């Protein structure tokens, strides 16, 4: 009556891989929150658009998968920056910045989400599209026993690590990254130090949307791409961000991994038909014991 440790390992590996993708979307949500003080409810749609852009670039334009990934990130970043500049920023005109715009931003986010989904419906229709990616050059990994990790998972893991390392390097070791951190902490002081705050806000938004797009392209080959995929991802990524501590970047990754693992374990050992519930179960559990999230920071003093 041995416990099947092989399977457990497999579930954990898959859970971590998918979890890191949740973490990347959660990273974007936390980035936007710490930089702009808003919860971006249309972030799931950035993920969805990223997936579709990647699909179009890979299938229709015929670019190799990694190039399509980068292309999708750039296109979605531009889309996100345009949305922020044209729509969200208008709400701050009344003075007081994004913080005061508060409630208006939340509602605008919901509206933008609906608008973006419908634009996608119009362009791509309602059917789920499979994302066939040529990943032959990526090895499958064999673990002890008969656990085989498919190429898409391996690639996802590698790219996720690269993205996170890149973001970390940018934030900690470049002058612009320092400016982004300053803006995220306190916009007024950053302004007073000569930092072009509106430009940094656009940059933060673009970064976050680019990350969401990467997640979309990475998930593509594992599931299919469909216009409504953003909704569920937003919920799970949001849960991940809160579990890890809303506004904390390492927390977003940690939260994502936890959601992914919890989800897989729940589906494997409790019930597969309710797979999507486990993320929220975890959320409730964590919040009961640590309301500020695992790596949660204290509420910032807002200027």
């Amino acid at each position, binding site marked *: 009556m041995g416990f099947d440790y092989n399977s457990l390992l497999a579930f954990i590996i898959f859970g971590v891989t998918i979890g890191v993708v949740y973490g990347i979307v959660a990273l974007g949500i936390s980035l936007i929150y710490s930089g702009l003080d808003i919860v971006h409810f249309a972030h799931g749609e950035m993920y969805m658009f990223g997936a579709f852009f990647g699909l179009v670039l890979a299938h229709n334009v015929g670019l190799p998968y990694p190039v399509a990934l980068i292309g999708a990130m750039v296109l979605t970043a531009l889309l996100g920056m345009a949305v922020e500049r044209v729509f969200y920023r208008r709400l701050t005109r009344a003075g*007081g910045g994004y913080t005061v715009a508060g409630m208006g931003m939340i509602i605008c986010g919901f509206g933008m989400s609906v608008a973006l989904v419908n634009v996608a419906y119009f362009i791509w229709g309602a059917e789920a599209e499979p994302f066939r990616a040529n990943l032959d050059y990526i090895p499958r990994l064999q673990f002890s026993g008969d656990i085989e990790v498919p190429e898409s998972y391996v690639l996802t893991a590698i790219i996720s690590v690269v993205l996170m390392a890149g973001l970390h390097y940018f934030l900690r070791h470049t002058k612009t990254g320092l400016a982004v*951190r*300053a803006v995220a*902490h306190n916009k007024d002081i950053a*302004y*007073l130090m*000569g930092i*072009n*705050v509106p430009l940094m806000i656009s940059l933060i938004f673009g970064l976050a949307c680019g990350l969401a797009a990467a997640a979309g392209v990475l998930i593509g080959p594992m599931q299919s791409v469909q216009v409504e995929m953003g909704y569920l991802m937003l919920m799970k990524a949001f849960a991940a961000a809160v579990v890890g501590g809303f506004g904390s970047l390492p927390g977003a990754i940690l939260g994502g991994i936890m959601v992914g693992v919890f989800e897989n374990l729940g589906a494997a050992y409790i019930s597969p038909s309710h797979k999507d519930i486990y993320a929220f179960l975890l959320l409730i559990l964590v919040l009961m014991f640590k309301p500020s999230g695992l790596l949660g920071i204290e509420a910032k003093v807002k200027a």
Partner: protein
Amino acid sequence: MHFALAGTAKKITGERVLEVKDVHAGYGNLKILRGVNMTVPTGGIVTLLGGNGTGKSTLLKAVSGLIPLMEGTVLFDGVDISNLKPHERMRLGLVQVTQAKEAYPAMTVEENLVLGAYTRRDREGTKADLERVYEFFPVLRERRKQMSGTLSGGEVQMLVIGRGLMASPKMLMLDEPSAALAPKVVLEIFANINRIAKSGVTMLVVEQNVRMALILAQYGYIIRDGVIMMEGEADHLISDPAVKESFLGGSVADTSKALRN
């Protein structure tokens, strides 16, 4: 651009660094400043006094550009900056030093100071200025690698002033440098402000600590209900019965000696 202040002669010299002309400003529909006029001459220390809710912070924000002007103009060194964004004004040499609690706690002392030089391209000049800041505030040199969140209140205040100096400003605007600090620490900080002013940086010091501010400065403005109620040479204001009654209690004799180093 910079010239040293001769001794502590309390005479106001000609050229003006900052001119605030009939400024009306506020937040959204709420007007706080209702026609403020103020001038800061080059090389001096001017103080802006008032209690809470009188409009001091609003005036600072209007001058730095954090809030737009509803009416009026702001001139900096002769240039109309009324429509410039804060980072643009800062690059002209108008630097605001925020209150002590607004340093970046998750960065080291040195990182905070270097951040002050964000807009500068000259590495040699920046290094030289960093040394100058450490000479003004030796305790910062001791703690250069420490997270600024671990510093005491007085040390953080020195840090943010140092950070302002790193921008090589023509004028520094200090927002309540004495706030939440023990009197002995306030003395030390004000003595430093005096030294910095003598080295050629014009200062506008917004304060609630009326007594110390009027000893430090040459000229003072008193703001209330969004307008300037009184202005004058600091030594006149200190002995003015109206000012004495509303703000000061008791004698001011002893503190003046300590500031004269």
